[in-house]
């Protein structure tokens, strides 16, 4: 505790950063002008951290006072957070002014010379490179998620990264890239056209590569970084093609142009638009790690744990969802959308359903605590994709009410998932960090490294008593992900499942596939999340290391506590405030967060009724099936296999002790025969997708690559070397003319003069 106290003083250094926004407010600036700060401050900070870190590496002040740049990063992200909060506040405060005009300012124009544009070649009709800000309810939500989580994760990193000796003198690289990553997400969310969206999208791609490969000297990390980069690159190529097609259709990539009237009064060919949107969707699939481009995400766990939290909760994977959410105006036939794009919704929903189910299945057999969470991310994002798919379908069918509900639920699930998953990753980081620490402490000098994996849940168990805050956080986070009634994700997941079923039962029979898959996944989620918690925190310790674990590292607890509260209460609070209606208001009437009924009590009753007893009988059945599967069946099975009371004499904090006690009450079940089955092996091998892809690459890409390499080495380099040697010999020859004697110089000048005279003579006569 004493260590933690002394370091709290370092927060003084971030005060100047936090003071920027209040000062601007005081000086009468407008929040729209502050929007640039969200990106600009991190953009200025990241090179500073990298350069200063390189110059003053190991310097005492830099290391202990500025935490190798961590404090600067925290300050910059604090500025972003405060500016984002200001914009959010202003948006609600001045809502009527924002009204239809979502784009709040256009502040920068790319260099454009009249000279080049007057009547010559480099003309462009619309300035596609203009930079501006686009703010609507989805933007605000994502902006809050990104800035808030980035700030907390950075805070967490101060403890997690700086106390690990392996990171010593390398942390400036981490913080610099961290800040760049964060600003990529901020910029992408704020961008008011697809081109800048794409640019920031790529910044994130770069940073994911850099950060996953943070431990680049480890072969597995370098491999994982490459894999993440290349896999998302496949999606990015499709996204780029999609954007080209979009530009071809509309002649612009600006939201304000495109979204204003996507059908251009019926002139847009729906088939062409379908392909453009499909290409963009494949880009989103790559970024959000959906089937079949999901293979990179589990490997991405090679990065430091804060990076996992950053990628999975705050930034990268949400980008794909955001992109799909931005497709709504194209399909919303109620508002100039182009009809005939229902198939797009179906495809999105199917990709989501398949990924959700597959990822949940693979998560069953994972023993690495971070891998479970990774697959859980895939699965939960897939929920959102399913919901967005249903929303696209409904919008295109002009089922406005259903569309709004499921779109809002999907976006709301994004929020709930981000908060819970950010916390879960940090909590898992806390576990890993402390287990690792305890192991180092215990085996100091024994040279026993390598055998022990601090991320393997088979080495844990019974941590509930050692790490009360982490255990509570993890419990709440898991509950939110599972969708335990009244907590976090429940409020959004219900909506997605119910509306998908509504689409399947009442409108489109083909929707039944995703509908069945997501409801099954709900139960499976209940199982694997509970399994993770029970394996880690309940039962008896499974290795001697775990006995010595303490929650002692500074900076780690605060974000966990904050996010526990947000995850536990955020869901219900925002549900009461009508978050789903609000989030889907972007493309319809201007929305506002407000109670649905006049008083709080009535609102609570309305929401509960809505959630548990919907009027539609089918939906009521679906809702209760989901609750049964996710709340009862999944967790109980997990408890039977992995649950159990703590060892004698240990007692957990009251917040979680009840769960530990209950987990021992369902008896136990031996599943060793099941775990040796072919199915389990297939799941452990991730359903052989990696093998399949690698086999395909070896057959197709590698021969082409080696041919290209041969061509490059021999033909291109050969030509260039020839040019080079010819130039050099020419150079040596031409320099012999420069003799250094003034006589020769004059001789040459005379030769030149005579040539001029001869030329003129020839022309004029």
């Amino acid at each position, binding site marked *: 505790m004493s260590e933690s106290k002394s370091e709290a003083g370092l927060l003084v250094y971030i005060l100047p950063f936090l003071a920027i926004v209040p000062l601007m407010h005081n000086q009468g600036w407008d929040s729209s002008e502050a929007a640039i700060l969200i990106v600009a401050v991190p953009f200025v900070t990241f090179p500073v951290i990298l350069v200063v870190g390189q110059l003053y590496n190991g310097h005492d002040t830099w290391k202990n006072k500025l935490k190798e740049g961590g404090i600067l990063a925290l300050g910059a992200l604090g500025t972003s957070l405060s500016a984002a909060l200001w914009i959010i506040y202003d948006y609600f405060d001045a809502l009527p002014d924002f009204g239809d005009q979502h784009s709040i300012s256009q502040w920068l124009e790319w260099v454009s010379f009249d000279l080049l544009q007057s009547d010559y070649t480099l003309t462009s009709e619309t300035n596609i490179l203009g930079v501006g800000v686009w703010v609507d309810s989805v933007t605000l939500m994502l902006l809050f998620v990104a800035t808030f989580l980035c700030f907390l994760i950075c805070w967490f990193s101060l403890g997690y990264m700086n106390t690990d000796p392996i990171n010593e003198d390398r942390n400036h690289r981490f913080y610099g890239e961290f800040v760049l990553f964060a600003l990529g997400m901020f910029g992408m969310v704020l961008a008011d056209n697809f081109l800048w969206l794409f640019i920031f999208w790529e910044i994130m791609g770069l940073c994911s590569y850099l950060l996953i490969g943070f431990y680049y000297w480890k072969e597995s990390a370098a491999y994982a970084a490459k894999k993440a980069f290349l896999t998302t690159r496949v999606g990015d190529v499709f996204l780029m093609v999609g954007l080209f097609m979009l530009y071809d259709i509309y002649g612009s990539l600006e939201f304000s142009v495109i979204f204003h009237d996507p059908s251009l009064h019926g002139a847009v060919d729906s088939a062409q638009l379908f392909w453009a949107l499909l290409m963009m969707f494949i880009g989103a699939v790559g970024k959000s790690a959906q089937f079949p481009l999901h293979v990179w995400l589990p490997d991405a766990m090679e990065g430091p744990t804060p990076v996992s939290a950053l990628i999975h909760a705050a930034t990268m994977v949400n980008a794909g969802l955001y992109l799909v959410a931005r497709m709504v105006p194209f399909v919303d036939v109620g508002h100039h959308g182009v009809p005939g794009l229902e198939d797009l919704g179906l495809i999105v929903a199917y990709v989501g359903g398949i990924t959700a189910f597959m990822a949940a299945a693979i998560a069953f057999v994972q023993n690495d605590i971070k891998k479970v969470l990774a697959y859980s991310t895939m699965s939960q994002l897939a929920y959102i994709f399913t919901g967005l798919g249903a929303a696209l379908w409904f919008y295109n069918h002009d089922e406005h009410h259903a569309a709004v509900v499921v779109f809002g639920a999907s976006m709301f699930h994004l929020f709930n998932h981000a908060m819970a998953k950010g916390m879960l990753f940090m909590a898992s980081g806390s576990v890993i960090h402390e287990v690792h620490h305890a192991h180092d402490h215990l085996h100091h000098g024994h040279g026993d490294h390598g055998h022990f994996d601090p991320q393997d849940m088979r080495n844990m168990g019974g941590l509930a008593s050692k790490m009360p805050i982490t255990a509570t956080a993890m419990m709440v986070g898991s509950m939110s992900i599972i969708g335990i009634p009244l907590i976090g994700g429940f409020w959004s997941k219900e909506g997605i499942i119910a509306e998908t079923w509504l689409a399947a039962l009442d409108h489109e029979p083909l929707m039944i596939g995703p509908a069945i898959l997501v409801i099954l996944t709900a139960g499976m989620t209940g199982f694997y999340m509970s399994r993770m918690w029970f394996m880690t925190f309940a039962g008896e310790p499974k290795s001697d290391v775990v006995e010595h674990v303490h929650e002692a590292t500074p900076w780690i607890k605060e974000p966990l506590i904050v996010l526990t509260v947000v995850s536990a209460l955020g869901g219900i609070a925002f549900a009461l405030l009508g978050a789903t209606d609000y989030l889907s208001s972007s493309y319809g009437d201007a929305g506002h967060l407000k109670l649905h009924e006049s008083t709080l009590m009535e609102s609570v009753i309305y929401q509960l009724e809505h959630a548990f007893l919907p009027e539609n009988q089918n939906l009521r059945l679906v809702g209760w099936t989901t609750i049964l599967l996710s709340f009862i069946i999944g967790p109980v099975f997990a408890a039977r296999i992995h649950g159990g009371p703590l060892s004698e004499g240990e007692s957990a904090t009251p917040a979680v002790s009840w769960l530990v006690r209950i987990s021992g009450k369902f008896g136990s079940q031996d599943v060793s025969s099941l775990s040796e089955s072919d199915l389990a092996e297939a799941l452990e091998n991730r359903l052989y997708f990696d093998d399949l892809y690698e086999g395909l690459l070896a057959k197709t890409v590698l021969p082409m690559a080696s041919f290209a390499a041969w061509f490059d080495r021999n033909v291109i380099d050969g030509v260039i070397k020839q040019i080079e040697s010819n130039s050099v010999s020419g150079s040596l020859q031409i320099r012999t*003319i420069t003799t250094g004697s*003034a006589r020769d*110089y004059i001789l040459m000048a005379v030769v030149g003069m005579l040539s*001029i*005279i001869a030329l003129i003579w020839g022309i004029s006569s």
Partner: protein
Amino acid sequence: MISLGQLNLDSETAFTLLPELVMLVGVMAIILIPNLGNATFRMPLTNLRVPILIGGSRFETTNDPRMPNRIATATFAIAFASSLLMIDSTSEEVGGLLRSDAFSRLFSAMFIGALLLVSVATTHRIPAKRNAKVPADGDSEAVTSRKMAALIDNRRQVDFHILLIMVGLGMSLMAMSTNLFMLVVCIELASLSTYVLVAFHKEEDVGGEAGAKYFIVGSAASAVGIYGMSLLYIWSGDLSLDALADKWGQMQGIDPFAAFGIGLMMVAFGFKVSAAPFHLAAPDAYSGASSPISGLLATASKAMGFVALIRVLVMITIPDFGEESFWFLMLAVVSVVTMSWGNLAALTSENPKRMLAYSSVAHAGYMLAAISVVGSGLAGEEGTRIILIAITFHLAVLVLFKLGAFLVLSLLETEGGGHRMQDLHGLGKREPLIAGSMFVFMLSLAGVPPLSGFLSKLLMVNGIVSSSAGTGSPSTTSVYSWIETVDPVFFLAAAIVANSALSLFYYLRLSLVMFFEESERPSRLKSAPSLRMAIMACAALTVMCGIGPASEWLVGLVTTSIDSLLG
């Protein structure tokens, strides 16, 4: 009111000629002030001391050897600011020989700006040393070098800065000249001063030799040019540019007197811009002179040549659009030879100063190619305007990065380096900021986006390509048929692009050795704060003038000036 021949120096004229008058006052001040308090008066540029009746020894302040530099810097700063401000003012005739308009004022700002940088950069060369002696034959090496150091930095500073201001006066008046005679006289005023400046370190063999060669070849070229001018006079009977242009417009066919006159003047101007094959003395002069002076030759002196070329080629013989001018072929050939020669010779240069000299030859080639397109008859009114804007912009930003590169070498000269590639080794470790600036200069010279060198090259190639754009037959089946039908002008652009690719090799090689080679001397360079400041300013402006509002401002300024030239 003072009357000087035709020139009535009333308050209005005085304001129009403000930058020149400021420089005149500056020269006077440099002549007078260092003598204040002394009983003798030293005649500038000589060793003569004329006794005057009052005074004893000099005052503390007037004795300071940094005084002339301060006066010169202040003079240039005021003159620079005033000519910059005058770009927007209306065009004014002065005394029948001069016209102050946006075009001439932009160029005088360019010249004086370059001189200001040179003047700032030479501050550090002035430690207070007196009674310096020329090294004798028998002196040991150490004594020689000590004497040499003292000698370079002695009170000849007065002379140095007088010459510098005279260069500024000559160039600035030259830009304003509306009469060919005045133009040549002003060029000579500036040139003679630069000859002396090149040979200023006459005690060093290189400097003396370089100055002598530069002077001899330069005089020969000038003589040819003046002969050409006399032919023009015989033809027209008037050397005023407007009269010449009128006469040219009325001419039927091409009068050999006029054509030869202009052709011979090309020799003189070709030497000024260092076009092949008149450029041969330039590399020697650049490497012999001190680096700031080399930078001056490569930028201001070259810009002066281009002003003359534009005045004579474009303004006198302003081509009927659609008709090929008689000088098109000549200039096109010269330009291609010049750029190729420059780049090829620079490729294997081991002396960075010579390398930069050849690179400067290559840049002259690019600009000559652009001018020749004006004569091709394809450009049209708008095309001519764009090409002139491109050239002027290039000359303006060249001051930043070419002079900046020479200033970096000048910093190396403070430790006696700057003549060998090895002197640049490891500069990235020794002086990261200076090496970074040098890297920026090199990239800009090579024309890498988003630096200003890229923008200027883009504008030039854009002008050339768009002039020839309509000519090729739009055959979709065969590239060959297009190549056969497209106007040869297009290949000037191709030559520029190919040469730029070639030039990257030596620019990047210089950058490479700064960062990847180990230095012989690991210590830091001399502090020389003003020089460093000048380098940083050049680097910052090189970036800013390539992208963003500053570049738009500069392009706007250049556009104004070209519009005023074309009327």
